[in-house]
């Protein structure tokens, strides 16, 4: 995966496959501690304790189309490349939270990528699910909530193609305002 936003889309697909009606995506850039945290929390049916010990194994999957399950293992690899780690907590019947931590300015930290496209596709592709996207840079926060979007868009349904553009523009502007970093600073110097 080239971008962290693609990992986020992939992990959120797991949440949706687990019957979630609400998915919260929280990103926190802690400039002081040089830490990037990505949290994906859902209210799906959760993972049993037995399965939880195996989910990061690339040769374990609960699906039957193929014998590998790479989503979480790839994210784990992406965190470990830059002195981070991946943590998963789950309670059966209540939901799951995946927390990925990265060294924010590590040279090998993957760029965040297009969060607007990720959120646009998640929201427009799953109009009945409630999504929250919160992006915090130190004490500045950008928030996108589907229940607020419904109020703004009125008669326009969330699966309308216009919604993708709306979400993209809102996120692009919002992240600019709070000064979110796409690339690690060490990479910016080279670009």
């Amino acid at each position, binding site marked *: *995966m080239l971008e962290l936003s*693609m990992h986020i889309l*992939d992990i959120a*697909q797991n949440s949706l496959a687990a019957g979630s009606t609400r998915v919260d995506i929280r990103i926190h850039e802690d400039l002081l501690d040089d830490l990037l945290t990505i949290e994906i929390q859902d209210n799906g049916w959760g993972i049993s304790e037995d399965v939880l010990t195996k989910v990061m194994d690339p040769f374990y999957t609960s699906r039957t*189309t*193929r014998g590998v399950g790479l989503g979480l293992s790839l994210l784990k690899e992406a965190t470990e490349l830059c002195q981070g780690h991946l943590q998963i907590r789950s309670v059966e019947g209540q939901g799951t939270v995946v927390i990925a931590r990265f060294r924010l300015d590590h040279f090998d930290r993957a760029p965040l990528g297009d969060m607007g496209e*990720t959120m646009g596709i998640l929201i427009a*592709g799953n109009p009945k699910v409630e999504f929250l996207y919160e992006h915090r840079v130190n004490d500045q926060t950008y928030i996108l909530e589907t229940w607020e979007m419904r109020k703004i868009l009125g008669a326009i349904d969330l699966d309308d193609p216009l919604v993708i553009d709306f979400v993209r523009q809102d996120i692009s502007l919002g992240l600019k305002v709070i000064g979110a970093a796409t690339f690690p600073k060490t990479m910016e110097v080279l670009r």
Partner: protein
Amino acid sequence: MELRIGEKTTKVVVGMGTCGIAAGARPVMAAIKDELAKQGGEKVTVVQSGCAGFCEQEPLVDVFRPGEKKVTYGKVSPDKARKIVTEHILGGRMLPEFVFAQEK
């Protein structure tokens, strides 16, 4: 996902498993939605699916037109996706050069 036989509207399925996303399914999905919006294809249903097992052919796009058999396009790029929308999904002319598999 359930696909009902005899559906009256065209359905497009984009593979959005880990393999699909890693191969670029997200911009492909965005291009399909955008092109449909531009060309007035609001009645076309676009849905996502998981991994179909042909990961090396991702991004995969299935086209189900009413009364016609399923056509699967492989290694779809956003540009190819826009052509598929214009020619096949809305125009009814399959693009054999991009086809990975066809239902018999």
